């Protein structure tokens, strides 16, 4: 069986979808027998869940205005650069 230290080293891997089934089984066996590590595993899982559910606020309007102005300027410059040279007669 894994030691608590080994469990901790593998814990992060446990939350990856790509986790090796053998590693997953080892972790599950350990937490079923070690109440402290069960708590650590459960609270880590919940920590990740809380952060994944973090809200993503809208960009403040003033910041967005500046961004759009900068982009418009870049687009205008590119357009000017791309368009054929004016020929004066």
């Amino acid at each position, binding site marked *: 069986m894994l030691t608590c230290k080994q469990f901790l080293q593998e814990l992060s891997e446990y939350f990856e979808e790509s986790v090796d089934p053998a590693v997953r089984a080892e972790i599950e066996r350990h937490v079923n027998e070690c109440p402290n590590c069960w*708590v650590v595993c459960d609270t880590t899982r919940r920590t990740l869940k809380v*952060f994944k559910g973090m809200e993503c606020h809208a960009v403040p309007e003033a910041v967005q205005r500046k961004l759009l102005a900068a982009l418009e300027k870049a687009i205008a410059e590119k357009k000017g650069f791309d368009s054929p040279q004016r020929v004066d007669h």
Partner: protein
Amino acid sequence: MSSSITIAPPFDEAELVAKAKAGDHVAFSELVEHYERRVFRMAKQITQNEEDAEDVLQETFLKAYSHLEDFQGNSKFYTWLVRIAVNEALMKLRKRRSDKTVPLDDPIDTGEDVVVREIAVWEDDPEQRYSREELGGILDDAIQGLKPAYRTVFVLRDIEELSIEETAEALGLSISAVKSRLLRARLQLREKLTRLFKRKGNDALAYL
């Protein structure tokens, strides 16, 4: 053509990118509109500075616009965007440091920061005790407390949900470095949240 009901078309990243590459500015604006929130949030989380995050946001989309032709479609557009944003954010972070040495390079791995101090079960729905603003503040503070090297990996992998491989690529790190930093970041955040969210009183050790 007029209609009082407008249904937003589904967001098709590949199509918008193709149009934008062909010079369609509206398509590029739609990409900006779709991703600006996430780029801005990521920039704030990495730089921990509002003003820097504004610059990062702007620089990211300006660079994306001017280098659009270089985007080959080998990765998702968003991953490409994140790579640009991360580089801009890390540059800001380095500039802010007076000694110019942000420890983004390998922290010395003594194994000492793989720690668990708080072992306590959480309340059933601890998030419910806080308003959305309060909870947002708690999470922001927790992230802020991480070293930049850990913070950056955590933000990309666990908040922006890039894969381990994409995170490694975006940061120029090995897969094993990403994993090791992720473990430390996750455990440190777990520690902080447990202090706030643990079950109080007699129930605290009920799991034993």
